[in-house]
């Protein structure tokens, strides 16, 4: 690997401490390196600098230079360079570091400026924290605690603005809470490439709104809710559902495409309330698609499979497994694995295929890529199947070979790991000719036709790993428990391997990974526990020549095809 070039470092002094940061870093980020927070609202590291909230005002100075010799002038008392302090406060977000820059983030001037800005932001703010969804994760609330005066000098009428505008299908706007930071405007324009937001009216009466006749309806609209520093933009879905401080965050991965956006799943007492992006600068920055946020609804969906069935009748797990073992004994079994299974599940699926001495099929799922965070490959883990050796070539969207085997009578039993065979091209007549063992989360045509159905868990109810389009191995963790009586997918698969005569394999993640590391060369050094939160880039060279379907997305350029 070629080491990245060492960035030019610039040494600055913040609150008396020297720190070397890369050239081009702004003062807010430089201070962050020292663990010093410079309060801000409008600045967002992934958006252009607006400099309008004036909260990050700090005191700043540069070393005094001798005009003749261009040498720094030293203070005779201390022997250190003399600093020319700028008499007016400067904004930290728009000031890039320069050699010898001195910054005071908490001087009386900086504090007074912040206190002034805080008072100004609060005078026309409704102060309705008790009923505001942002409460608990509101920057205005936090900074008001630090810099507010605790009482109001404002005795006038507050400005009245629209209270509950539907900006689009998923976003609700309360204009009275808006502090006009323009983060949402800049996001829509710069990241979502959908420049629909803007202000009407002037001064303190400025009102955020959509362009006439347009809506904030792009697939990234809910990111505006995430970056809104106050409670102005709220998610219509999450609004008034739960106080954020009751929620537990679980790191997860968006399974809707091979991008593998990093997410946080917010749950309480086994119920998921929302999904938000988790920062990973190599994958999704701080964004994710709206479509990925709605996926938690499948957990409580009406068509969830909740108990094993045998020929359509509910049964016990053991009976279902016994039936599968009998089918295995009869032979002529085919395995349909899934690009939506985790790496661990795919490994066990491979083990199952090996025990039955067959090769596994996989179904590809291709849609339109949006060039941002939803790629054309709608399976989150096709590359996992390649890495684990479940498949050797890229899958097709239709199981044509399997259909031919069924027609020819070469296959009598099909084990489908979560794939709907009808959608993958098998006809009802073909399904009627075979016995189906279906492992899945939700009812569909295949589960209805299956002899044996063993329910499995959604991505929110289990732990595991996916390999995204960059060949980055990323882990997700169980956010909520699965339905009572439903076994983890790994348990089910391990039991199937045993039933197929493949021996006993541990289904516990830590132990399973020692097996995986031993058998799968690209994963030789990995354990589940030591996998970094931002993922681990695998060596993709063995698969570099494969014609993957992804186009360009955020932080990913497909390899040039000849």
């Amino acid at each position, binding site marked *: 690997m070629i080491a990245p070039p060492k960035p030019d470092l610039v040494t600055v002094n913040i609150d008396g401490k020297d720190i070397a940061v890369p050239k081009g870093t702004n003062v807010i980020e430089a201070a962050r390196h020292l663990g010093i927070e410079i309060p801000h609202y409008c600045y967002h590291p992934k958006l252009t*600098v*607006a*400099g*309008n*909230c*004036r*909260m990050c*005002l700090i005191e700043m100075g540069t070393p005094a230079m001798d005009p003749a010799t261009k040498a720094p002038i030293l203070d005779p008392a201390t022997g250190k360079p003399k600093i020319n302090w700028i008499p*007016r*406060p400067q*904004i930290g977000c*728009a*000031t890039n570091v320069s050699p010898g820059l001195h910054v005071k983030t908490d001087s009386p001037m900086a504090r*007074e*400026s912040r206190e*002034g*800005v805080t*008072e*100004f*932001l609060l*005078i*026309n703010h409704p102060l309705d924290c008790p009923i505001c969804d942002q409460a608990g994760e509101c920057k205005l609330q936090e900074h008001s605690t630090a810099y507010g005066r605790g009482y109001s*000098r*404002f*005795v*006038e*009428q507050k*400005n009245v603005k629209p209270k509950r505008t539907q900006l689009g299908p998923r976003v609700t706007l309360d204009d009275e809470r808006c*502090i*006009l930071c323009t983060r949402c405007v800049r996001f829509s324009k710069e990241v979502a490439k959908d420049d629909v937001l*803007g*202000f009407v*009216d*002037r*001064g*303190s*009466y*400025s009102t955020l709104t959509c362009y006439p006749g347009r809506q904030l309806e792009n697939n990234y609209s809910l990111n505006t809710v995430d970056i809104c520093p106050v409670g102005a933009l709220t998610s219509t879905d999450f609004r008034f559902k739960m106080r954020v401080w009751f929620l537990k965050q679980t790191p997860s991965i968006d399974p809707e495409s091979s991008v593998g956006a990093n997410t946080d799943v917010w749950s309480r007492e086994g119920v998921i309330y929302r999904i938000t992006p988790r920062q990973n600068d190599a994958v999704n920055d701080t964004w994710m698609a709206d479509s990925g946020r709605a996926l938690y609804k499948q957990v409580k969906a009406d068509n969830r499979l909740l108990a094993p069935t045998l020929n359509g009748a509910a049964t016990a797990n053991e009976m279902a497994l016994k039936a599968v073992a009998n089918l295995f004994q009869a032979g002529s079994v085919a395995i349909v694995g899934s690009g939506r299974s985790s790496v661990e599940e795919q490994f066990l699926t491979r083990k199952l295929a090996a025990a039955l001495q067959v090769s596994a099929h996989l179904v590809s799922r291709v849609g339109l890529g949006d060039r941002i965070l939803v790629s054309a490959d709608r399976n989150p883990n096709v590359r996992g199947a390649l890495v684990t050796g479940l498949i050797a070539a890229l899958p097709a969207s239709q199981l044509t070979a399997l259909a031919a085997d069924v027609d020819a009578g070469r296959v009598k039993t099909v084990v489908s790991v979560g794939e709907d065979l009808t959608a993958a091209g098998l006809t009802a007549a073909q399904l009627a000719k075979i016995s189906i063992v279906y492992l899945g989360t939700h009812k569909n045509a295949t589960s209805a036709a299956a002899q044996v159905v063993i329910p499995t868990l959604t991505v929110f109810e289990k732990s595991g790993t996916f390999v995204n389009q960059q060949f980055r191995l990323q882990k997700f963790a169980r956010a909520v428990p699965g339905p009572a009586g439903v076994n983890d997918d790994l348990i089910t698969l391990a039991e199937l391997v045993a039933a197929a005569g493949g021996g006993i394999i541990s289904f516990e993640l830590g132990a399973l990974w020692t097996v995986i590391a031993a058998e799968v060369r690209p994963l030789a050094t990995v354990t589940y526990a030591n996998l970094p939160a931002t993922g681990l880039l695998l060596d993709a060279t063995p698969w570099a020549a494969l014609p993957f379907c992804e186009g360009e997305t955020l932080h990913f350029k497909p390899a040039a095809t000849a």
Partner: protein
Amino acid sequence: MPAPQQRRLIFAHIDEPGYSNDLACYLRHGGYAVMKQAFARKPEELIDEVKKSGLRGRGGAGFPCGVKWTLVDRKSGKPIYLIVNADESEPGTFKDRCIIHQDPHQLIEGTMISCFANNVKQAYIYIRGEMPHGARILEKAIAEARAANLVGQNILGSNYSCEIYVHRGAGAYICGEETGLIESLEGKRAHPRIKPPYFPAVLGLYQCPTIVNNVETLCHVKHIADMGGEAYTKIGTPNNTGTRIFCVSGHVQRPGHYEFECGRITLGQLLNDVCGGPRPGRTFKAVIPGGSSAKIMRFGERYKGKRKVGAEMVDYDWGVEDVPMDFDSLGMIGTMGGSGGVIVMDDSVNMVEALANINAFYSHESCGQCTPCREGSLWMKKITTRMVHGDAREQDAALLKGVADQIPGRTICAFGEACSWPTQSFLAKFGDEFKNYHEMKKTAAPSAAPLI
């Protein structure tokens, strides 16, 4: 000491009977001769003349025009734009409008000379939305000049081409701020840009180097090109060269616009001798010397300190009437020459009510981009409006000062200063009137005119 004679340089033909704003009349009075001579010279020479002249911007800040031109990034390879700031909106100022209405070709000639000096191929006149008549006159004048090959392609065979376009604003004071103007000209909301990095001289219109000059400033350039920078410095006083147009409004006998050599006339001479003094039976109470955002002066107060005369420092002890009307002197006593709008108030004026009026203007014109100005200007307006409508409190004076002090120096553009200086200075000079207003209001007769 009697007031000096007016020195009409820019306003030479303003209000002159028989002088019309068409090209023929301008040519009859020697128009465009200076431009023809200038086009025969080297552009650098013209820039040097302007530098030598010490011309200071007439839009309000008084920034040296030659320095502004020197800061322009000429190495980027990008086109350089020149924008004529005709968004004259400062309350009390009405000089640029007179030039545009009565002598538009003087502006066009000054603009063309400045464009030639700076190698500008495209210039824009940004005229405020409330001046539709002025825009029509400019359009017509440019069309005339273009027809006479004084503007456009290969001007008078000089191989130099430059177009001028008129762009009308939509009625916002903030469009007079140069970066707000540039945003507006680009078709966006006039939210002023943050500096750094968006200095117009480097990243201006369409991210290209841009010069933004006031109408009057560009007219001065024509006269500098005519007489030479050296000769121009002989007009006015050192560092305050040239003439200054004063737009006197308010409680004087003869309000209007007057042009004098900069620093050769005192405020007292201007108000008493030139403008005829206060109305009968009245006395002067206060004056704002440079447009409504300049800090107010109270008659009766004294200004003391040291100032530079020639090479030595001299003590000064001035009353309001003794202050010379130039950039430096007005700056020294804590106010500014600004845009030249002299607003006079006599003893019939209640300062709380006057400030209520000014605050209403600034809160209405704040663009709303950055917090201190957006919230502060409206808060101050709400306080002064409440006061004049009968709910004044004793603590309002302190509160107003507290609010105003949180604004200047903390905003993106100079509007923060513009909206807070009136409140700060009114309170500093007339604090008692604000403190006692609630008492006064109990017995005062209702105002004849409706209050803001």
